[in-house]
């Protein structure tokens, strides 16, 4: 959702009047945009649609809010341009190159399109010159050696200004369709500025790409099936024409032929055109007449897991334990160093995380519980609290596993191991898992050796419990004896019948 700054000094009179009118914000909504900010120098508009980049320049916005009467932007505009024989050299593999030959009369104003290009590249080119680039040569070039600038992490804005006289505008794009669209948009913008277009050239088969702007065929039945109502002929036609569509209606076949303007990148399916109609008419409820599909009584349901969770919450509430919530992502310091972790290679590392405090995923419910236990507002011990959380971990074969777990922490209670054992037994009984559950000694480094167990039902491990190791407690700054219980809710859900207990 890019924010675009329009400099007031560059805005032509007719558009400026529209921007100063009281219904400007309503009009902006007809191009899915909102007014973000304005002052004496700029008007900042937030465009919701990432794939309407043609709007991110003055000419693009003017075409909708203050159009030039009689101007059409259909495929014939570009089909009528001569194709100039041109040789492109050093075009990187997978990249397409385009050239547009433009004559600028000296009396016409020149505009810097650098800001527009930067916004387009940032939004639909991942900000990389390799994906999308434009350069200008101040003469008519028939042999064009492609050089693509290196990516620049700084916020420098490129300069992209035509000079009076002859210009060759060179576009390179990894995505063919985006390249073709940018060529078409420059064609429309230059025409609106009054420049003369002398021809174009392409390193690829452009006819196939231009075919994307051929008329769409849309039967009346498809309109009604999508809308659930039938718009009047006149309204449908006039609304689309205001959006620069060329329309033709075959009455006998009850079929529309609708050509999108060539500056539209986003029109690839008839439904895109139909949405434009709804947006332009403001989702008129008198026309839509909403009606629910769910009028007949129907019974929904919860997942077994959420039923199980509610059962456990009820039990823990009666026990007097407090529920809390935890974060899935945490820091290396919390998950490895403070946890005294013996296998950090099993943790999921998010290499492109921007926040170093959130670049690893928790592999156990213990870290979020400990994090909460040392939270300034945590209740004073003795206390017991619990949470439900997803955990992620890698196995030996680098397969990532996700498990939904319940973690319980008993802080500062007497007899921490026995208390945890008793609570675990009660929970297993509550879930009717008791008789078949078995305990086996385990060896997890965050728990004290000899005071920790895994719980299994048959061969399936369903949880673990034990006393938290003093080394871990010291590293977290939690100076109370603490015990920990963890239940694997995915494992329990698989063997649990919701009607049990």
């Amino acid at each position, binding site marked *: 959702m890019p924010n675009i700054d329009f400099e007031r000094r560059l805005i032509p009179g007719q558009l400026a009047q529209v921007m100063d009118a009281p219904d400007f914000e309503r009009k902006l909504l007809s191009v899915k945009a909102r007014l973000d900010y304005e002052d004496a120098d700029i008007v900042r508009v937030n465009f919701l649609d990432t794939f309407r980049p043609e709007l991110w320049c003055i000419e693009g916005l003017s075409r909708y809010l203050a159009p030039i009467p009689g101007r059409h932007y259909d495929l014939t505009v570009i089909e009528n341009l001569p194709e100039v024989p041109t040789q492109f050299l050093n075009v990187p593999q997978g990249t397409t190159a385009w050239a547009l030959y433009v004559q600028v009369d000296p009396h016409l104003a020149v505009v810097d399109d650098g800001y527009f290009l930067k916004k387009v590249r940032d939004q639909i080119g991942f900000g990389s010159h390799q994906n999308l680039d434009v350069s200008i040569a101040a003469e008519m070039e028939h042999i064009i050696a492609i050089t693509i600038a290196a990516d620049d992490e700084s916020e420098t804005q490129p300069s992209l200004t035509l000079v009076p006289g002859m210009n060759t505008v060179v576009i390179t794009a990894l995505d063919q369709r985006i390249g073709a669209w940018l060529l078409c948009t420059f064609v429309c913008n230059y025409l609106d500025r009054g420049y003369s277009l002398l021809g174009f050239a392409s390193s690829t088969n452009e006819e196939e790409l231009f075919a994307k702007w051929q008329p769409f065929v849309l039967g009346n039945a498809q309109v009604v099936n999508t809308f659930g109502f039938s718009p009047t002929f006149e309204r449908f036609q006039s609304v689309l024409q205001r959006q620069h569509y060329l329309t033709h209606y075959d009455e006998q076949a009850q079929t529309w032929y609708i050509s999108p303007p060539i500056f539209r990148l986003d029109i690839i399916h008839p439904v895109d055109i139909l949405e434009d109609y709804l947006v332009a008419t403001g989702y008129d409820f008198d026309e839509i007449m909403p009606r629910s*599909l769910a009028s007949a009584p129907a019974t*929904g349901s919860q997942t077994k897991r959420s039923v199980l969770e509610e059962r456990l919450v009820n039990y823990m509430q009666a026990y007097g334990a407090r529920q809390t919530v935890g*974060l899935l992502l945490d820091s290396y310091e919390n998950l490895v160093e403070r946890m005294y972790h013996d296998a950090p290679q099993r943790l999921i590392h998010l290499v492109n995380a921007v926040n170093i405090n959130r670049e690893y995923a928790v592999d156990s419910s213990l870290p979020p519980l400990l994090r909460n236990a040392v939270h300034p507002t945590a209740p004073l011990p003795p206390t017991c609290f619990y*949470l439900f959380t997803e955990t992620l971990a890698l196995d030996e074969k680098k397969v990532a596993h996700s498990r939904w777990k319940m973690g319980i922490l008993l802080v500062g209670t007497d007899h921490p191991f026995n208390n945890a054992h008793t609570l675990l037994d009660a929970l297993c009984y509550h879930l009717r898992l008791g008789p078949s559950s078995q305990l086996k000694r385990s060896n997890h480094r965050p728990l004290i050796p000899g005071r920790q167990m895994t719980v299994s039902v048959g061969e399936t491990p369903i949880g673990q419990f034990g006393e938290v190791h003093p080394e871990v407690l010291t590293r977290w700054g939690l100076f109370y004896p603490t015990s920990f219980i963890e239940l694997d809710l995915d494992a329990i859900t698989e063997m649990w019948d919701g009607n049990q207990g």
Partner: protein
Amino acid sequence: MHEIVLSDNEIQILQALAKMPGEAPVSIEDLHIDGQLSYAQGLSAMGYLCAKGLAESSEIGIEQKCVLKKLGQVYEMEGLPEQRLWQRLHATSSLTFQEVNDLLPPSEARFTIGLFQRSGLIAISQGRITAQKQDLPASIDNLQRYLSYVKETASGEPENPAEAEALKRQLVEYKPIKVLGYRLTRLGQRQANLYTKAEFQPMVGSVTREMLLSGAWREKQFRPLSVVAPPEIRLELQHPLPRFITYLRRSLACAGFREVAGPILETEFWNLNVLFMQKYHPVRSPRHLLTIEGVSLPADSSEIEARTQACQERFAREYQGLGTSGSRGWGNLDGFDNERVVMRSHSTPVTVRQLAYAQDLPVRVFGFSRCCRARPERPEFLQMDVLVADTAINVSTLVGTIKHICLAIFPDAIDIRVRAAYFPFAEISVDILIVFPDKSSFQIGSAGLLRPESVAALGVPALVGIIGFNVSRLARFLVHNPKAPDPRKPIDPNSIGFDAFDETEIPIHAQHRF
């Protein structure tokens, strides 16, 4: 005496009321309480006495008080926006508009920049704002002090020019506050007599080890505990976020939807590709999507694997414009990796996956999903996604279904509206607004029809409606937190532990569904 159980504080208030001459109601401040009860404790105990039918309240007067309005409360706590912006401006020497917008809400940013500009405090050049003076005008500090004064004293300062400014900006208001007085009911008088005859002394709540060792318990009376009242339900023990999710879950289940769930680790195919996201859409950028390189996910069953494979093949055809949906496609498939593992970046994959595996229509499902994105603030958030696939789905029925769902969640609302929005995988795309009886409306979610290319890739013979909600945003309108500076502050899934949300109140209609 044993039928009505009173705490020590309640007994003190009861006796203080009994000692008051005459039957005229008295305010809490005028009660002569022997013990060390604070005003709040006294008020709380009085509330319990009224609830138990031992005391009753009546209005004994009206006082004109000056109080902070909501915005005034926020400014009093966090500082005026002028001060916040000024401090940041001096700390960083200059700011862009984006940085100002990150610091302040848009309306405050606009107001403050305009004010500074008019006062010559800042200069704006090439989109950057720089300070032109060293100090803010004294009137702004004065306004901040005035807000603190109003908070502490509940009275105004008509002579202070800050008051006119605060009233103009609707930070404070004068309003009549009822003063309540209390007196004993007949039942309360009888109860007070019982305590007088028993020569009341403080009762003991808990038997302690020290008491047992010293034998001091022999001198004490033990406060009786009620065996008639039901066991105390301690709602505060449940965190408000999961409690609110339970409410939403039951609302949706009652409205006829089936809950589904899925793991947060997804393949890029299910997270984005199947939704027909263009190759260079910013949501695919590493600035947005959290990816995990060099790992795989556990193998699915052969049946699911086969269905996924079929979806991938249909998606490939649709993307190139060779599919059955009538789409002209986005182009070639260079650079796509269906198997790359990512953190789920939005909730729709959870419901859409169910659609791919569904045998029959209609499909009406919903799911709650924790989602993660590569951003510095709040990389984790919670979404709720509702999906309807039905042969009768179209724009009219989608909007009607949105209304059905929203009114199930917001029984106080009278209508819903929609307005144009954009979601890359939905065409049409709308924002949902709920309308309350006072005609106020708020955006609470988003919806649309799944792109036809995606529907074709999933192999569904009908249109598909999707409705998404940010759970925190929903909570903003449904959950009240009286202790927060802004009572409608959203529940933040990133707020861990035991903060002010302990006091969060779930609305009555929501509690009934628990």
